[in-house]
């Protein structure tokens, strides 16, 4: 079954905002895309339209947070983290304010709009900022848990959301804990580390590998930062190799975060990163076509696992 993260996000934020009038949604003329429109429609007094001005939006959110509000700032991931980077750094992260940056339509998920609207660098540039927590919920069921966790964190949070329907890989009862990876499926030979859209691909890779007699563990990372290093080692323990797969640049994303956790081990597990190489996006009529072209498929993940186990 597939479900849309954005719809789940809007509903989750609305529920949270109904319970807490200090939750405020800001958007830069993309509220239908980001689904902050659910706040505008139902709780207009808790919605602030900021026009097409991302820098001003983020600094305005800082001002709201300084007066006790919990602002959720919405736009596409590429604009949130790129156009407003300095405002996030100087005005939000440095003073450690409770501003939540929601980067919607991340990765290749805005397939039609092309390179200017697709974003593979958001997790890298948000992760490097002190005080920032970086979350990438895996599916629509997990999104509300991530939103509630973000609201409770006494500091800035970046939440990465996908634009399209994604397979459900968790259930209501699945635990969600910031900083901790979650094993979605057991396996002995290789750990497949995934998040967001690559979770579904990881499941496919696991099936492909099973046919070849390879037992793959599927470990989901909904937190990129901060990562509990002990929990990461525990999650990978017993397998002989690690494959990370992400809809993000292989520089500064999930693969880098996992490598940073285990790289200083005395005998670190061999690790290979599947992800987007050093390149920009482009338009296509389908998401799947782009994912395949950019090397993000279950087959590609399985091939990487086979290769590293040789």
């Amino acid at each position: 079954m597939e479900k849309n993260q954005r719809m789940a996000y809007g509903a989750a934020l609305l529920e949270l905002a109904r319970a807490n009038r200090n939750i405020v949604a800001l958007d830069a003329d993309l509220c239908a895309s980001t689904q902050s429109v659910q706040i505008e429609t139902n709780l207009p007094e808790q919605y602030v339209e900021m026009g097409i001005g991302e820098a001003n939006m983020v600094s305005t959110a800082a001002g709201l947070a300084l007066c006790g509000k919990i602002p959720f700032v919405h736009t596409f991931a590429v604009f949130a983290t790129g156009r407003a980077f300095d405002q996030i750094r100087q005005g939000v992260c440095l003073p450690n304010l409770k501003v939540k940056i929601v980067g919607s339509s991340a990765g290749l998920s805005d397939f039609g709009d092309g390179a200017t609207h697709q974003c593979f660098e958001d997790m890298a540039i948000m992760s490097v900022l002190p005080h920032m927590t970086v979350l990438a919920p895996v599916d629509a069921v997990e999104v509300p848990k991530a939103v509630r966790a973000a609201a409770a964190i006494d500091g800035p949070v970046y939440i990465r959301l996908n634009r399209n329907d994604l397979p459900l890989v968790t259930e209501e009862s699945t635990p969600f804990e910031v900083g901790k990876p979650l094993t979605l499926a057991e396996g002995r030979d290789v750990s497949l580390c995934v998040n967001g859209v690559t979770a579904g691909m990881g499941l496919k890779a696991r099936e492909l590998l099973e046919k070849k007699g390879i037992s793959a563990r599927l470990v989901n990372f909904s937190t990129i930062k901060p990562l509990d290093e002990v929990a990461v080692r525990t999650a990978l323990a017993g397998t002989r190799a690690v494959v990370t797969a992400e809809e993000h640049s292989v520089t500064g994303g999930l693969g880098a975060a996992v490598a940073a956790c285990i790289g200083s081990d005395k005998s670190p597990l061999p690790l290979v990163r599947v992800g987007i190489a050093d390149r920009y996006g482009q338009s296509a009529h389908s998401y799947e076509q782009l994912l395949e072209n950019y090397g993000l498929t279950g087959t590609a993940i399985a091939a990487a696992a086979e290769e590293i186990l040789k």
Partner: protein
Amino acid sequence: MGKVNEMDRELLDTLKEKARQVRLGIIEALGTGNRGHLGGSMSCADVVAALYFYKMRHNPKKQDDPNRDRFIMSKGHSVLAQYAALAEAGYFGRDVLATTKSFGSILQGHPERETPGIEANTGSLGQGLSVGVGMALAGRMDGLDYRVYVVVGDGELAEGQIWEALMAANHYALDNLTLIVDMNGIQAMGRTRDRYAIANIPGRLAAFGWKTFEIDGHDMPEIVSALDRASSVKGAPAAIVARTVKGKGVDFAENTHAYHNNLLTAEDRERAIASVLKSSSAAV
């Protein structure tokens, strides 16, 4: 605090003395042998003194009062004037001023909210007015009647984000927000009109929907009057364009970019103090 219709001589004398103390505090914070932003701090000293010792509702003993007025020094490098005002108002001891910019000091090179009395982090130019918009929106949402004051420099107006914030304040008719442009006409590398001219600042602000007042930013009666008129504007944000002199009060640093960010020798420091003491801090 309160409305001054007829200019009260005693109040004016008090404010002029406060402005003089702010200027002496700037020199204290600058110290000797280390670079610091003297010129832009001195140019806004009279406005800052009028805000802290006349206009703003604030209390160092109730720093968390949700209904306190907020001040944001968007031109964060001029924070020396704010530090001096905060010390004079009792947010921290005057002796702390001398630690400005030293390792471990609560007084950083640019404003940080860990410092008592500092409301927002600034320093990357052009962001303070947007923060003020957020604070003004929050006040409206919470039904509080506090006011938000933001000081920007005229050179800073080259930052595009300020114009985004001007539009936002106009769109939301934020009449609880007052912008003060410290128009000293000089930026780091020279005269603003030569380096990167932004002509007709009052006209531009008015065109963006702001009720705009133009004053002599060193004339205390004009400052007080403009602050009162700005806070009585309804249905629109108000801007005060204050014509000022960079380095005002320190004769050898006036009207030059040489002391935008420069150091004082021990001898300079004595001359600077003497100059401040000699000048009536606010020209009448």
